[in-house]
């Protein structure tokens, strides 16, 4: 059962950091060598095991339900309880990750700005008006797009005011 808890640890470390694929595979092959198992069958077993937490996340299952699922799949009660415990501990992180993966349309990634004074133009020799230039970096699908725009001062203040109203609204729903 110490084997099982070591394997569970490896699995959860991967689930909470899904980008660390290399590390996960290395840890699996280390586990295989240490316990004199062949890597191929181990990988298959782990693949099946991974189905349970992923499905559980999608369906918002409680840890008792996860435990029941594992027992139904043939795992011993002790091991199923252990896994369910680990699941409970990790579920805030896993939930946050799943929410983070949720679709976002044209997500705003970054904003840069500069402001200055228009000194003159081809129509007017002396101008002296203040402008604010914004650059928004937006994620469209998998690509980044830069959007540039100019605001007058009154527009800026009105924009700031509206954004503060949005913040109040978002906070009241959190």
């Amino acid at each position, binding site marked *: 059962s110490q084997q099982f808890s070591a394997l569970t640890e490896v699995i959860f470390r991967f689930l909470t950091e899904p980008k660390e694929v290399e590390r996960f595979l290395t840890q699996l092959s280390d586990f295989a060598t240490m316990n004199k198992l062949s890597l191929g069958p181990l990988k298959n077993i782990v693949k099946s095991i991974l189905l349970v937490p992923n499905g559980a996340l999608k369906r918002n299952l409680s840890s008792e339900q996860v435990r029941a699922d594992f027992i139904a799949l043939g795992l011993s009660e002790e091991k199923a309880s252990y896994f369910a415990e680990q699941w409970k501990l990790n579920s805030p992180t896993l939930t946050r990750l799943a929410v983070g993966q949720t679709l976002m*349309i044209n*997500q705003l990634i970054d904003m840069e700005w500069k402001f200055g004074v228009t000194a003159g133009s081809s129509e007017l*020799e002396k101008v002296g008006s203040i402008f604010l230039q914004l650059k928004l970096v937006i994620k469209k699908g998998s690509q980044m797009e830069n959007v540039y*725009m100019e*605001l007058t001062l009154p527009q800026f203040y009105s*924009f700031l005011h509206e954004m503060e109203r949005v913040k109040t609204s978002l906070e009241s729903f959190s």
Partner: protein
Amino acid sequence: QLVSALHNLTRHVVYQGLTKPEDILSLFPENFHQNLKNLLTKIILENASAWRNEAQASQISLPRLVDMDWRVDIKTSSDSISRMAVPTCLLQLKIQEDAALCGNNPVVSALTVELSKETLDTMLEGLGRIRDQLSAVANK
């Protein structure tokens, strides 16, 4: 030829930002008809500030923000998780391309952007900094 001359005169007045009648009167040649000179000066003065504002409005610029709308949604479920309650903001910006390029048919495009609460907080921090910088400049 007359129209062209008038055009040059008004352009010059607007460009130089002339506001005093004497400045405009001095532009006319010596033996110009007196009453016509006064009439023209009066008309030009009346329209000068409107022309100036229009010139400023149509000067070259980056695309300009003309309108903005927002709405707050609550995301209740997705393909990666079936139950959640995550508030998110959709911001629609109406942007007009450079007026000087479009002439009389300005092209306005609408861009809808989604912001999470964290992004909004960061943005507000940035906007607050802009406001502070603006007041620092204004108070100098």
